[in-house]
C-alpha cells in the first residue's frame, strides 16, 4: 500500500525529470543534425552548381573558340582563295595545329554544292541543298548542329558559317570530333554512380552517358524549357533519385546534365547522423541513470523521513495513549488500594484478636486462623497487581534514571508469564549477573521488550521457547540484550521492512504495524541500536545494544 505510492512518486519524479532533460537533448541533437545536414547539403549543391557551371563554361568556351577560329577564317579569306584546295589544305593544317578536334573542312556554295573539301573522306561533289543544316545556315548565318554519326559512323558535329561576299554567298563548314568534349563532359562524372552528359532540347543524348542510355538515344526526362544559369536539385528524373545539376549552354540549345549519387555525396551527413544518434543515446543513458539514482535517493530519503515522522507520530499517539491509560490505571489502582487496605487491616485486627483466643475454647479456631492467613495472602497478591499497575502507569516522557537491565527484563517477563504459560511457551532467561547499571528509561525499555516478546509469542503461537540473554562489553561501553524465539522465522523479503511503520504481517485489526517502529525509535532515542536476524523455519533473534552511561554521582 505505502510501497506502491512511493513507487508511483519515484516514477513521477523520473518521468518529470526525464521529460525536462530529454526534450532539450533531443531538440539540441536534432537541430545540430538538421543544421549540419542543411548546410552540408547546401555545400554539396553549391559545389555541384559550380561544377556544372564550369563544365558548361568549358564546353561553351570550346564552341566559342571553334566558332571564332572559323569566323576569322571566313572573314579573312575570300571564296576564291578558299575554293582552292591547296590553300584550304594549308589553312586546315593551321587549324589542326590549334585544335585537333577538327576533322575536315569544306566550302559550299549557295546552291549547296561542295566546292572544296579537305579531310579524310570523299565528300566532294555532294549536294547539301536539301539538308536541314544548309537551310538553317543560310537563314541564320551561323549554325552549330547536333551530334550525329552521319556517313562516318562516328559521332561528330558540324559548325557552318555563311558569308555574303558581294553577290556571292558561301558557307564554310567544319566537322568537329566530339571526342574532345565527350572527355570534357566525362571529367564531371564523379564517384561510383555519378554521370554527366549533354543532350539537346528534345532530350537526345549528345555525349554518351555512363549509365542508362547511349549516344543519340533519348533520355526519359521531362522536356526542360530554357532557363538562365545552373539549376541544382535533388529530384527524381528518369526514375532515378539523385542530385542533378542542369544548365543550358549559351551557344547551342544543349543541356548539360551532371548527376550525382546523393548517398555518396552525403556520407558525412549519414556519419553525422550516426554520431548524433550515438551522442543522444549516450546522453539519454546518462540522464536516465542519473535520474534513477537521484530519484531513488530522494525517495529513499523520503521513506526515511516518513518513517521517522510515522515513528514520531506513532510515538506521540502511543505516549498520549499510555498517559491516558496511566491515569486510568492509577485511578483504578488507587480505588482498589483503599478497600484492599481496609481488608488488610481487618484481617490484621482478626489476627490480633485470634492471638488472644484460647486455642482450646473454639473448635473452629484452626479454620479461622487458616482463613485469616489465606485472606492475608490473597490481599498481598492483589496488592502486587495494583502496584505493578501503578509501576506501568508512569508517564511516557523519557526520563533518566539508573536502570538495572536484568530487573527490567524480569519485570517484563513476569508480566507475560501467564500468557506464555497458557500457550505452553517457555521463556528462558540467561542474565549476566554482573551487568552494570546504565542511565536510561526503564519503562520505555520495558515497552520495547514487551513489543518484541509479544511478537515472539504471536509468532510461535503454541509450544516453543523464547530465550532472553543479556551481556555487556566494557570496551565498547555497551549492554546487549538478545531475544530469540524458535518460531517460524521471517522471510528475507519481509525482514527489511519489519521496522517500517504500518507494516504488519498480522491479521487485519490484530496489529497496527507500529510496535516495532516505536521500539526502533525508542532504542534510537536512548542512543542504542536494534537489529533483527532471522531464518525461516529456525526462528528470529532481535538484538538490542544500549550504551553504558553513568553520570558522575556525587
Amino acid at each position, binding site marked *: 500500500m505505502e510501497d506502491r505510492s512511493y513507487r508511483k512518486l519515484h516514477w513521477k519524479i523520473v518521468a518529470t525529470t526525464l521529460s525536462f532533460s530529454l526534450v532539450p537533448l533531443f531538440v539540441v541533437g536534432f537541430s545540430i543534425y538538421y543544421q549540419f545536414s542543411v548546410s552540408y547539403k547546401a555545400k554539396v549543391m553549391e559545389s555541384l552548381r559550380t561544377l556544372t557551371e564550369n563544365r558548361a563554361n568549358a564546353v561553351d568556351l570550346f564552341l566559342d573558340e571553334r566558332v571564332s577560329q572559323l569566323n576569322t577564317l571566313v572573314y579573312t579569306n575570300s571564296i576564291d582563295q578558299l575554293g582552292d584546295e591547296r590553300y584550304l589544305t594549308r589553312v586546315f593544317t593551321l587549324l589542326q595545329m590549334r585544335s585537333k578536334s577538327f576533322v575536315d573542312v569544306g566550302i559550299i556554295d549557295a546552291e549547296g554544292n561542295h566546292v572544296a573539301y579537305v579531310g579524310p573522306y570523299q565528300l566532294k561533289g555532294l549536294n547539301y541543298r536539301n539538308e536541314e543544316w544548309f537551310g538553317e545556315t543560310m537563314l541564320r548565318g551561323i549554325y552549330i548542329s547536333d551530334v550525329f554519326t552521319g556517313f562516318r559512323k562516328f559521332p561528330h558535329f558540324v559548325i557552318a558559317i555563311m558569308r555574303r561576299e558581294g553577290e556571292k554567298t558561301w558557307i564554310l563548314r567544319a566537322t568537329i570530333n566530339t571526342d574532345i568534349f565527350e572527355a570534357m563532359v566525362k571529367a564531371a562524372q564523379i564517384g561510383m554512380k555519378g554521370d554527366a552528359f549533354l543532350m539537346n532540347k528534345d532530350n537526345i543524348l549528345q555525349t554518351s552517358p555512363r549509365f542508362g542510355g547511349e549516344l543519340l538515344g533519348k533520355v526519359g526526362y521531362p522536356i526542360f524549357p530554357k532557363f538562365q544559369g545552373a539549376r541544382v536539385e535533388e529530384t527524381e528524373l528518369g526514375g532515378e533519385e539523385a542530385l542533378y545539376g542542369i544548365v543550358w549552354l549559351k551557344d547551342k540549345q544543349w543541356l548539360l546534365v551532371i548527376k550525382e549519387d546523393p548517398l555518396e555525396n552525403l556520407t558525412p551527413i549519414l556519419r553525422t547522423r550516426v554520431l548524433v544518434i550515438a551522442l543522444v543515446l549516450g546522453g539519454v543513458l546518462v540522464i536516465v541513470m542519473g535520474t534513477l539514482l537521484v530519484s531513488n535517493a530522494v525517495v529513499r530519503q523520503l521513506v526515511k523521513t516518513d518513517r521517522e515522522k510515522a515513528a514520531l507520530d506513532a510515538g506521540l499517539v502511543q505516549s498520549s495513549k499510555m498517559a491516558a491509560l496511566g491515569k486510568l490505571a*492509577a485511578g483504578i*489502582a*488507587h480505588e482498589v*488500594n*483503599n478497600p*484492599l*487496605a*481496609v*481488608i*488488610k*487491616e*481487618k484481617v*490484621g*485486627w482478626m489476627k*490480633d484478636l485470634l492471638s488472644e483466643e484460647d486455642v482450646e475454647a473454639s473448635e473452629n479456631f484452626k479454620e479461622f486462623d487458616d482463613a485469616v492467613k489465606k485472606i492475608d495472602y490473597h*490481599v498481598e497478591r492483589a*496488592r502486587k497487581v495494583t*502496584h505493578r499497575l*501503578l*509501576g506501568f502507569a*508512569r508517564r511516557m516522557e523519557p526520563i533518566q534514571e539508573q536502570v538495572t537491565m536484568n530487573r527490567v527484563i524480569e519485570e517484563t517477563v513476569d508480566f507475560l508469564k501467564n500468557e506464555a504459560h497458557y500457550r505452553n511457551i517457555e521463556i528462558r532467561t540467561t542474565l549476566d549477573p554482573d551487568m552494570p547499571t546504565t542511565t536510561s528509561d526503564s519503562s520505555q525499555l520495558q515497552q520495547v521488550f514487551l513489543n518484541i516478546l509479544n511478537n515472539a509469542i504471536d509468532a510461535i503461537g503454541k509450544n516453543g521457547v523464547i530465550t532472553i540473554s543479556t551481556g555487556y562489553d566494557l570496551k565498547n561501553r555497551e549492554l546487549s540484550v538478545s531475544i530469540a524465539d524458535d518460531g517460524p522465522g521471517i522471510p528475507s523479503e519481509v525482514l527489511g521492512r519489519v521496522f517500517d511503520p504500518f507494516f504488519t504481517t498480522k491479521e487485519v485489526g490484530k496489529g497496527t504495524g507500529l510496535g516495532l517502529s516505536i521500539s526502533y525509535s525508542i532504542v534510537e532515542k536512548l542512543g542504542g541500536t536494534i537489529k533483527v536476524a532471522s531464518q525461516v523455519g529456525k526462528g528470529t533473534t532481535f538484538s538490542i545494544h544500549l550504551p553504558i552511561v553513568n553520570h558522575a554521582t556525587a
Partner: protein
Amino acid sequence: MEGFRVLVVDDETDFLETIVKRLRKRKVDAVGLTSGVEALKYLETEHFDVVILDVRMPGLDGIETLKEMKKKRPLMEVIMLTGHASVESGMQGMQLGAFDYVIKPADFDELMEKIRQARERKSIHEEKLRRG
C-alpha cells in the same frame, strides 16, 4: 510503646477504625479522624507525638494538611500514607517535613516500626531543644 499519642487521619472510616483498634491493642494512645480540617482543629487543643496522614482525601488533602500541621507543631512527626506508587507525592511530603511515607495497603508491622522510629526522632529533637 506506651505513653505516646498517635493521630490517624484518613477519610476511609473502616480503615481508620481498624488501625486505631490495632494501635490501642498495642497500648498506643491512638485517635482517629476522617478529615484534614478536623485534624487541624483537634490539634489546637491536643498534643500528639506522631501523625499518620492519608495523602488523598476530599477537601483538604494530605499535603496541604501536612503543611498546616508543621506550622502548628513543628516537632510532631508525620508519616504519609499514599495510594500512589509514584515517588513524587511521597517525596513531596518528605520535602515538606514528613518523617517517611508508606504505600497503601501498608503492612501493619512496617507501619508500627516507622511509628517507633518517628517517635524516637521526636524525642531526640525535644532533648536537643531542652538542652539548647
